[in-house]
Every structure is written in C-alpha cells, then in structure tokens.
C-alpha cells in the first residue's frame, strides 16, 4: 500500500524546490527528496545488544544556468532551508564553467509508465518482536556445534522509505519501498585459531526472508567449514568464484563500461562496443521491471525510463551503461542508468553448484575476497582470497592467506561456465563463475 497522502506532500516540497530554483534564476532544475524510517536490533550471546531507531531525510537540488551547473543538499525541510539550498546551488552555478554536455535529459526519454513493481511491503514489527527473531537466529547458530565459540550477533533490520524526483520539464514522481533483512555472524575456534563467517537474507517483503533459524544454521556451517584453513603454495590453477563473490567480478565489468569511465578514458574496455569481451555462451541483460526485486525501478536517477535490454549477447558487448551526461560526452543516447544498473542478470548454464565443482575438478573455490586490488584503467587484478582447495570435484580443505591475480580482460574471456546457483541478494544476479586459470600466490 502506497501512502499517497504523504507522497503528495513530498511531491509538493519537490515542486517548491523547482519553483524556487526558477525564481532564483535557474534556466532548468532537477530536485529530489528521500525519507527513510527504520529499526535495527542486534542480539549477541543470548541478550539484546542494541536497539537503533533510524529516521533520515534529505533533499537535493541541481540547477542549471544555461550550461553551468550547481548542486546543493540539506536534511532541513523548512521553507527557509529550501530557499537557502536553492541559493547555494545557484551560487555554485554562477562560478562553475560552461559545459556543453550539461543539462536535463531530453524530454522524450523521461519515463511515462509507472508500473507497480511490488517493492513496498511494510513490516509492522515492534522492537520486542524483532529482538525475539534475532535471538532465535543467533541461538540456532550457537547451538549448532561445540566449536562455535563466540558470536558477533544476529541483526534484524526493517526499513521503509519514500523517494520523490522532479525536474523542470514537468517530471514529478514518487514512491514508497521497503527493505528488510536478517543477518548472523558467528565465530568458531579450533586449536586456538578463530574463524568467522556470516549469512544474511534480504527482501522487499519480510515474508520472503529465509527463516531466522536457517540463517543462523548457515552462518554457523560456513564458519565451521573454515576452521583449520591453511595457505597454498604459489601456483596457477582454475578458479571457481562462488555466486556471492562472482557478482563482484561482473561489477568490475559494469564499472568498465560505465559512461564516466569511458569518457575519462579510464577503462580497460575502451572502444569495446560490438567486440567479443566474454565467451560466446554468455549473455548479460538488465531486467528493471522484475516484481519485488531489489534493483527494480521504472525510472533512473534522472527520471529517464529504464528498459529491459541486453548488455552482452553471445559474448559481444551490445551497449554501455550511460546517464544523459556521459551519453552526450560520448555522442550517444542515455541508457537509463543514471545511478547504476537495474537487476543485471547473467544467464545461467545447466550446472548447479556441485556440477560446477565437478567441472572445476582440481583447483581453487573462492568464497571471500579482500581489499580492492583492481586497476580499472588496465584491468590488472590482484585480491586477497579465502575459500577451499578442490580435487576431483570434491572439497579437500579450507584455504586462506592467498591472493588470486590476473587481468580482467583475460579473466572474462577465459570464463568456462556460469552456474545456476544464482545469488538473488545482489543487484547483479549471477551464479558461480568458473575461470580457466589464474595466478595464486601463497606461502
């Protein structure tokens, strides 16, 4: 249920910002506003640890004086503050340089259809009930095995937000959405060495969350599997990225084909449009209108209509990830990605996780990565890793204190297969990804 009365009140505020901008000399303007309320409770060692009540609001305006741009924001919604915020943005626009590419999106690109994306499911939960869920989750983890020796706790989070966007071309839209999660992180100990791992579930709808006890049990199982980890000798071998870390690999690809990286020439995939960047069996596409999905939106950060589209077909790059500004800089049209991609989906093969392990045969399964270690200009890649050594398709023992390295351009071309064990918790939806060979550094 959308709270239309509240949305209309906030739409009026955004309209006030736009009107004030025109009054103060802006030739065009864009304004946005968000309001978010939530509750977060954490239980640790069988007791409540924190109860946090969240309540955030922010409004921002971007004004154009001809081809000069200025932005300003505040968390004070009073009429005085709105005037001052617009004044600050207009003042900046008086000092910034003329930029031929600056400005609002073209009118005909703006969204006109606003389908219900089923992303608003308020969870009417009291702090005391949230505590009970967190306690149940942590208890399930702690009671699983004697080697679970300590806990970082279990957390229940529930948030509901409203966001409104408007511009001086007449676009004015707003909507309500929710996001709920349960997470748990526990510590195991063996021979004086500790390991921790975690699990979480997140959804627009609390009913769709994994059960508290399942989350706790998974967190504990993951921790237990890591006990007794050892390093590997330095070598080259095939590497299987589990689904939760594979999303990051695809995230680097999105960064490399994003407009701002391209027009700054700071991308390892410059001029790659219509060329083979992935193996022929791979398809990557955007699905902005999926019901209840975390990355769904009918319009982007500028009000431009989002669209379902292929980004990679048969391994060939079909399109970039552009806002109207970066599109103009590149002499192209916006792809409706101001603010990022929407439910970017890597099509899966036939293999489930076990079949992926069999296909890996002997090599490294990576389940966690550490540090940044990605050079976006050259594609050089070197990150800390932990996971499991696999032989003949069977997990042998946990490994840690190693790095995995390569160059992303080669890594993408050397993808052998994509599993159907998709992690739906991310805006990038992919299964595990097997790469033919990478460099492992260890002891």
């Amino acid at each position, binding site marked *: 249920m959308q709270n239309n009365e509240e949305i209309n009140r906030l739409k009026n505020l955004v309209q006030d910002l736009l009107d004030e901008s025109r009054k103060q000399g802006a030739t065009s303007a864009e304004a946005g506003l968000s309001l978010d309320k939530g509750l977060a409770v954490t239980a640790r060692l069988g007791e409540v640890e924190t109860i946090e009540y969240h309540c955030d609001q922010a409004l921002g305006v971007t004004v154009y004086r001809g081809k000069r741009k200025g*932005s300003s*924001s505040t968390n004070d919604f009073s009429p005085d503050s709105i005037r001052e915020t617009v004044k600050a943005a207009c003042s900046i626009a008086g000092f910034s340089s003329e930029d031929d590419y600056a400005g609002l999106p073209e009118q005909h690109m703006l969204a006109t259809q606003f389908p219900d994306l089923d992303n608003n499911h308020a969870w009417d939960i009291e702090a005391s009930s949230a505590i009970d869920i967190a306690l149940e989750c942590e208890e399930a983890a702690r009671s699983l095995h004697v080697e679970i020796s300590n806990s970082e706790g279990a957390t229940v989070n529930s948030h509901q937000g409203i966001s409104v966007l408007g511009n001086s071309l007449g676009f004015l839209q707003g909507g309500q959405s929710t996001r709920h999660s349960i997470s748990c992180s526990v510590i195991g100990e063996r021979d004086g060495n500790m390991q*921790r791992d975690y699990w979480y579930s997140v959804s627009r709808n609390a009913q769709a969350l994994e059960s508290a006890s399942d989350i706790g049990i998974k967190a504990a199982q993951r921790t237990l599997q890591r006990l007794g980890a050892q390093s590997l000798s330095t070598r*080259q071998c095939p590497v299987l990225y589990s689904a939760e870390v594979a999303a990051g690999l695809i995230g680097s690809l999105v960064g490399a084909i994003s407009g701002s990286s391209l027009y700054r020439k700071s991308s390892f995939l410059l001029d790659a449009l219509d060329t083979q960047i992935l193996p022929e069996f791979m398809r990557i596409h955007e699905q902005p209108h999926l019901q209840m999905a975390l990355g769904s939106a009918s319009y982007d950060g500028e009000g431009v209509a989002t669209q379902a589209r292929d980004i990679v077909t048969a391994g060939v790059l079909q399109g970039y990830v552009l806002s109207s500004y970066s599109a103009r800089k590149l002499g192209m049209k916006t792809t409706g990605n101001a603010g990022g991609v929407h439910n970017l989906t890597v099509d899966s093969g036939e293999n489930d996780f076990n079949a992926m392990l069999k296909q890996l045969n002997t090599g490294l399964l990576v389940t966690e990565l550490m540090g940044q270690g990605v050079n976006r200009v050259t594609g050089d890649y070197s990150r*800390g890793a932990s996971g499991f050594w696999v032989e003949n398709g069977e997990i042998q023992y946990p490994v840690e204190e190693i790095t995995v390295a390569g160059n992303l351009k080669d890594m993408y071309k050397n993808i052998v297969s994509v599993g159907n064990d998709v992690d739906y918790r991310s805006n990038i939806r992919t299964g595990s990804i097997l790469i033919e060979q990478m*460099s492992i*550094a260890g002891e």
Partner: protein
Amino acid sequence: MDIINQVKHSILSPYGMEEKDIDKIMDSMLSATVDDADIYFQASHFESWVLEGGIVKEGSHSIEQGAGVRVVSGEKTGFAYSDRIELSVLLEAAKNVKAIARQGQIAQKKIDKVAGYPSYYDAVNPLKSLADQEKIALLRRVDIETRKLDSRIEEVIVSLVGVHEKVMVANCDGSLVADIRPLTRMNVTVILEENGQREQGSMGGGARSDYGYFLDQDKALQYGVEAVRQAVVNLQAIDAPAGNMTVVLGPGWPGILLHEAIGHGLEGDFNRKGTSAFSGKVGEKVASELCTVVDDGTLPGRRGSLTIDDEGVPTENTVLIEKGILKGYMQDRLNGRLMGVKSTGNGRRESYAHLPMPRMTNTYMLAGKHDPEEIIKSVKKGLYAKNFGGGQVDITSGKFVFSASEAYLIEDGKITRAVKGATLIGNGPEVLTKVSMVGTDLALDSGVGTCGKEGQSVPVGVGQPTLRIDGITVGGTSV
C-alpha cells in the same frame, strides 16, 4: 566567543533550544540501571569542487544537522536520532531508547561541568577561507601546470573538498563539551597514454585546516607532479612477482600496514568481545623489539586528529605496542568500562545518526636506527613497495591485505624494475614479528585516509619509517 558558546549559538539557538533543555532530555533517559547516556549534537557544512576535461564542471554544497540520544545499560545500547533539533522530538527519541534499561528513576545530574580542552587545530571555516573564484582559480592552475608536465597526459581530474563541522556532547555525568572541526582534502588524478597503453596516477593531501594549507609551498601543484610521476612509472611496469618474499615498505602512507595488520585488531570492542586475533594478548610479544606503535589523536592539524572524541573525551597518544610488547587497546567509554579501563579518547562516530565505537586516529610506528638506503642494500631479492591503495582486515582470523600501487623489484641490494600493482596478504599477529629493520625516516601520510568499519567512515592518518619485513605474500601474476 569560546568554542562551547559558538557551538551552542549555532546548534541550539536557531531551534529555540537552551542548555536547560539538554537537562530535560537527559532527565527523561535516566533510570536506575543506566550506566551511561549522552546526547550528541552536530552541524556540518560540506562543499566539493571538481575540475575535469579542463573545466570546473561541478560544485556541490550540503548542510546537515541533527542530534543522537543514547542510553547504555551493561552491554546494551538504545539509540535514536533526529535531524530536527527540537525539544519535543528529542524527548520522544529519549523515551524510545530508555526502554533498553530496566525501569526505576534515579536523581539526575544537571550539566555542571562545561569543559574546554586545548585544541589541536584552529576553529576555522575552510569554506570561507577562500572566495569561490579563488577556489576555482586554484583548481585551474593545478590543471594547467600539471598538463605542462608531460605530453602523454590525456586527462587531469582535480577535486577540492572542505568540511566545517561543529559538535557538542552532553554526558549524564554532567559534562558538556564542544569542538569545531575543519577538514580539507585535495586530489589530483592523471591519465597518461603511450602507444595505446594507459595508466593513471593519483596524489592528494589534506588536513584539519583551511584551504591555505594547499597554497603553502605550492602543495597543490606538487600533488600534480607526484600523480604524473606515478603514472609514468606504472607505464613502464612489468608483471609483479607472486609468492612469499622479503618486502621493504617505504615511509609514510605504507603505514596502512599498521592500520590493517594490527590497528583494527587492537580496537576495544573486538577485544572485549573476544573476537579479535589479538584478544587476551596484552603483555605478550606481538612484534619484533624494533617496533613501537602508537595511536595519537593529538598531532596538530592532522587529518586523524581530534581535540575531543565523539563521546567528549580528550584524545591521547596511546602506546599500542612498545618494543614488540602489546601494551593496550584503543577504547571508547562503553568498552573501556566493561574492560575496567578508561576510555583512551578513541570513541568516534561518522555522524549524529551513527553509534560511536572504538576507532583509530593517527596510527604510526616510531623511527628506528637503520639508514633507509642500508635497508634496501640488505635485500638480495625482494620487493620495494612505495605507494599503496586501500586495505582490509578480517580481525578474527587476523588475515589482512593492502594493495601496492607503486612497487619495484629489489635485486642484489638495488631497486631495479617497476612492477604492476599487487595485493600483499599477511597475518596480523605474525607480520610485525618479521620486521628486521626499521628506518630513521618516520613520515606521516599526506592526509588522505578514510577508514570504514561497520558501514561508518571516519578520517584517519597513518605513518611509519622504511621497514624491512622478512617474508610476506605478494600477489602478482609472475609465478
């Protein structure tokens, strides 16, 4: 006007609040089982200017204010905040958080200690320290001078950021303290192209000061020179080696080693909970005796420095490791109380909308006795790492990474070829035991560090002299 009155004037007065209203809010939070309670007021102004493609294409400005109320009872914390600094709103928030403690009213202590502390930076407003035209002229000058340095330059991006923040902390012990915190940051990134190959270089700096900091000795132009130098070096770089080897770390920013390998692991919360690889190790040897490491929030003007932390406690120069022996942890009020020690002034929060926790300030290793050149000469075969990007640590297993952005091979005691960036990985409780030489050249970083913990970002500093580590894993591709 002294700092406390300046801050009261700009945070309370516009909303019709007075000091006695703070007593009212505190009063409504306190009960018999409350161990600690505070109200944190904050107002901040932020601006940023970005030059790209030869033009100052955008600027942004932001004003935020709000207050957070917190009640602590044993290990339990109740927390709420509001961006409206109004008595009725904050009373409601106080009522909510009080539920964490059991009922029963105690006599409440009125604010009776309005404390002032010697400040480690001036109460200046960076945003007003230069006219907007002058800020733009500075960015343009850096762009023009940097582009003159090398014909292979494709793009120059220059950014300038300033923050003027006022905070005030009222504690249930009756104290009220305030701080005015300026913070500036400038950064230059260049992209070079040669024969179709591209590389980038980046350099920046900052301080708790106004923008005059960047004009002093033309620091701003030096960032451009350094960014170009790094990009040129990386254009020549060959594949980095892979495997365990002797590594020499340069002075200054490579001190990110200390931040990741031991700093986080020595934060009080993890040790109170027993989740750190360093838990229970006070008094034990965790480093070679050449190593003395401190966390010092009192360095004048430094990015990580604070006059008072976000719980109103004055910062200190805290010895973490002395001649290899673990001396103590960094504490905030809650974890210090539960561990039976005092806060070391390390209770920090990103904003009024976040809970405080133990965080680092400026973490560095004291200088040793070795000539830095001697340290390089002592290595037959290894890696010299001069500049780094970010890092990360798993405090429970102790494993940490930090990624070199400028590194060279050492062959027969000489620095030879530049190698591509690579991630270094090690074990926190072990790595400093392998430090076999410590240079005389202690340097602190240029003022660019931002540390993330549990989703909260705070500015920090790091530093160290040149160090030799006898064995750490280098994550190159050259097996």
